[in-house]
């Protein structure tokens, strides 16, 4: 459990440092979000399709998680 917590903290630090430090020169101005504002550029576009996929893979494979929660809440695995 200790190792896990350590890992989680590391991930958060990496995320935070990406957010606050290293990336201050990466990216675009707020008014340059025209392309990224398109529906097909939304990372959670097609949520229903991904939910169906995740349910299938959750019940047919030993892995889950990554994109979202790994939990299942169904008796399919």
């Amino acid at each position: 459990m200790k190792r896990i917590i350590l890992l989680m903290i590391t991930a958060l630090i990496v995320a935070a440092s990406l957010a606050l430090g290293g990336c201050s020169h990466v990216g675009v101005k707020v008014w340059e979000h025209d392309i990224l504002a398109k529906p097909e550029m939304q990372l959670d576009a097609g949520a229903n399709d991904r939910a169906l996929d995740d349910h299938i893979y959750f019940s047919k494979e030993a892995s889950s998680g990554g994109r979202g929660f790994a939990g299942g809440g169904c008796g399919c695995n």
Partner: protein
Amino acid sequence: MDSESQFGYVLNRRDDVWVAEYSAMAGPCEVHMATDRQSEADRLASLALSETRRIEQKFSRYRDDNIVHQINSSNGEPVAVDDETARLLEYAKQVHALSEGQFDITSGVLRRAWVFRGEVVVPDREFIDELLERVGWERVTWDGSSLTMAPGMEIDFGGIGKEYAVDKVAGMLFEQSGLSLMVNFGGDIRTIVAEGSARSWLVGIEDPSVVKGLSGSSAVGHAELTNGAIATSGDTNRFCIVDGKRLGHILNPKTGWPVAGAPRTVTVITSTCVEAGFLATMAVLSGAGAEAFLQAQGVKYHVIW
């Protein structure tokens, strides 16, 4: 983190609308959005800013990295253009014909012969005649997708660009949100009211050269708009004096001279900003006949002589 500078615009709540303000197109820009949701206002404001900057960068004559520069430095070679530029050029061609040559996007070079700072000037007739050699849409070859112009000629979307941007931004925001909204770029305004909404936008015409939302008290005229647009042509501050006569800054592309006896400003209210802008400019070009022209068109207007 929440400082306004990082957004590029300022967002404020005014009555029941969110108002985004930013500077672009050489002046103040305002976008009024009838929503109580700040995140939606934020999203739309950044889209508005993005679209405004895009149009500004693409059609500005002051840049050396856009299609206008490419055309103006083509040195007699044909230049193939993208769809949006083609639509603007096609529009320019059509209004040139409709105005019998008075509205001409190649007339910008004539400004080099004039200084409009309210001072007495002595026009250099020879220079004007020289410049006139480089003006005239009829000297342009435009086939709908590529444009060929004699060396020395220049095009300038100055008389169309801002109105185009106002309509474009308003249309885009409505398409994105379905909200009632008002876009105001330095007095060129487009309003949209969502279907089923009882809202109307009250616009005060204050100073002859500035049309603003009804916040000031110096309004000389009011307009209540649902789906409509306002554009103003002329500028009380930009004129010169020749032989004791006041001449405004709008030049007749056929003579190279300002229109004598023209109103200082003409404000037209109609359905789109592009249309209002063109009719207002045509009214100024009609000189003393400005009001007759406007009455013939059957549009609401406000003229300052």
